[in-house]
């Protein structure tokens, strides 16, 4: 496995065009195919079971749900540095992602590269739209906690905007504004937290604040907001109206591929960084769909060395809108996500009463 260090040396993660990117990524992905085949028995069994076996390995995308049902790792237990878990709020089973030192370094470096593109090289004052306990209570809020821990290093003077009862902490916010009003700062939170506990609260109180030098980063999905018919446009315009922030970036990421986040550009599209790529598949055939057609999002990443997560099939729907020609100037694919796949209907004669 050759080192991916030269990729981290690139000035920006959005410089390479389609052919350049393919040329760069393919050998790494191929190496990862071999590495995980050798090191992860479960992955090898799957490869050996599919039609074509190893010859078709590059078409094999592991459904992310497999990480809930199985321990999939390519390292011995003494190499495990940490185990990431997905949010376990509603479903009983959580994904377990085993991270070793190399993968952890890869993830950090990739995230740094991506974030630097938007915020520059210095740590910025950071306002977190959540309450201080969120990173302490690992069992309840693991996804939110992990998100905050992930972006923590890009901030300084970390300030929580909510108190432990989820009320807007006016004193904390006032102090933050007072101190950093004229500097660039980061506001970070989960999309629905920002909307429900911050924006809607400010609106209810008839209050506006001035954080015009801030950049908002938010993630975590739109499902809860769609119920209130809030789309990205509404979200942005309300944020602008109540906080004066005009740089608002949604981003898409998953615990199965930490480090490679897909950040929204000023034109409203999510961008694939150099470390990873997105493909829109038709699950009926597993063939790639043409641009501008929606389908299930598959993601490739060169970061995961410790677990076979280099080619994954998500359960999210999305559309690739184009490649290399986004008006924002970034190269690579740009896309939109449309939320989770609809759950299967209950069919057949088994356990209908029980599940109602």
């Amino acid at each position: 496995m050759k080192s991916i260090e030269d990729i981290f040396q690139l000035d920006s993660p959005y410089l390479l065009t389609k052919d350049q990117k393919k040329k760069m990524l393919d050998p790494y992905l191929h190496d990862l195919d071999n590495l995980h085949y050798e090191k992860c028995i479960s992955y090898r069994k799957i490869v050996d079971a599919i039609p074509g076996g190893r010859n078709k390995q590059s078409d094999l995308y592991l459904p992310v749900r497999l990480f809930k049902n199985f321990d999939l790792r390519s390292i011995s237990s003494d190499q495990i540095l940490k185990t990431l878990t997905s949010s376990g709020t509603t479903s009983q089973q959580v994904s377990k992602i085993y991270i070793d030192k190399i993968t952890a370094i890869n993830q950090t470096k990739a995230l740094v590269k991506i974030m630097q593109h938007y915020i520059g090289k210095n740590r910025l004052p950071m306002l977190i739209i959540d309450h201080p306990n969120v990173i302490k209570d690992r069992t309840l809020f693991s996804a939110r906690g992990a998100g905050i821990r992930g972006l923590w290093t890009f901030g300084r003077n970390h300030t929580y905007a909510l108190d432990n009862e989820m009320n807007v902490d006016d004193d904390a916010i006032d102090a933050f504004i007072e101190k950093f009003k004229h500097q660039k700062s980061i506001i970070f939170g989960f999309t629905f937290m920002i909307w429900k506990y911050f924006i809607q609260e400010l609106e209810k109180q008839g209050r506006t604040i001035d954080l015009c030098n801030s950049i908002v980063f938010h993630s975590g999905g739109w499902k809860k907001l769609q119920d209130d018919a809030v789309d990205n446009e509404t979200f942005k315009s309300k944020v602008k109206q109540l906080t004066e922030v005009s740089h608002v970036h949604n981003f898409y990421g998953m615990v199965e591929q930490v480090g490679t986040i897909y950040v929204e550009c000023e034109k409203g599209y999510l961008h694939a960084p150099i470390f990873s790529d997105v493909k829109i598949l038709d699950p009926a055939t597993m063939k790639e769909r043409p641009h501008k057609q929606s389908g299930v999002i598959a993601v490739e990443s060169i970061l995961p060395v410790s677990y076979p997560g280099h080619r994954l099939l998500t359960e999210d729907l999305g559309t690739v809108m184009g490649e290399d020609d986004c008006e924002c100037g970034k190269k690579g694919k740009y896309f939109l996500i449309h939320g989770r796949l609809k759950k299967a209907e209950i069919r057949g004669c088994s356990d209908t009463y029980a599940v109602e």
Partner: protein
Amino acid sequence: MMNIQMLVPKQTIEHKNLFKKFRTLAPFSDGVIEFVSAFSSKILVDQALKKYPELIALGFWMRKSSIRHYKEIFESKNEGRIKLARGTVFHIAPSNVDTIFIYSLFISLLMGNANIVRISQHSGKQTELLITVLNELLGESQFAHLQNYIQLVSFDHDSEILTKLSASCDARVIWGGDETIALITRVPIPPKAIDIKFANKYSFTLLNGKSIAVLTNDERNILAKKFVNDSYSFGQMACSSPRAVIWIESNAIVRKQFWEAVERQIDRFDHNLHDVDFINKLVFEYGLAIEKDIKICATGSNKLSVLWTDLNTVFDLDAHCGSGLFLESKITSLHELSSLLTKDFQTVSYYGIEKEQLIDWISSGLNGIDRLVPVGQALDFYPVWDGFDLSEFLTREVTVL
């Protein structure tokens, strides 16, 4: 306040009749036969119902001639015996094999029972259509007297109404699987009442490769079409839907020919498979590949998934997700299956094997399997279901010396 909705009869606003006892009718009484065959005619002539093959099958099943046939079987079986209806039968219908509740209801009605059917709140379009037809017929003056014998209700599953209906029935018919049965049977029925339970079951198909190898293309397509009907209706999640295919006297060529014919028929079938179903299948396939020794066969698309494996794995059907996924294996003699077939097995649909051969085999002693039917008839309902003769269980016998 009980949260209960009367679906049939329509004009009933109050539900006090639910708890009344009504005098039972004689088995196969003329009035009921008239009603059932009127129901059949209505379904078979309704253009709007033509697109539902399950409803057409239902319509055929209850034609006057078939009802007469069942009557004859019942009478010859019970010659010299006095059979009366049990009384009030409380049916708990499954949510998505929409037609099951009608079979359950009509067999019980033909036996002369008064019936209360709890319709699932997740029922589909077909249930709605069937309810409309029931109400239309019960609105006719000649059938008005049956209104007390056909009551359909809907209510929350934790409702006290379940307790009350259970406490006042003479037989309770529970469709819907192991968890449902566990839940419902916690609610007591009177000491003199009986429960008839339809638990989770699996089914498979038995194919003779030699017989299929000699088929013409057309004949093979017809067989494939029947197989697709059996397995892709209800998303392959009915108890009778085949989930495994066992080959006898086969080779790779004939198997390939068969599955290719199946794929052609799937494309013509209104299978209603969605993105999430395909992903569920991948999760199942890859999970099984990790745990067991399988080969995922190459198919034209994920609409058909075939997993080749050995006899130790071919019946690993617990986590089976439906949506057109088959575990496949081969045998040289039927007796190889005998020790594998537990109470969990319901239907064997077969092709190319003589009925006598099957009878010989099952007569040698089997723990499971309730029915063996030719491919294409897996989903056909029959008054003997899961090994229960409903006409027997829904009646009582009176001895006169």
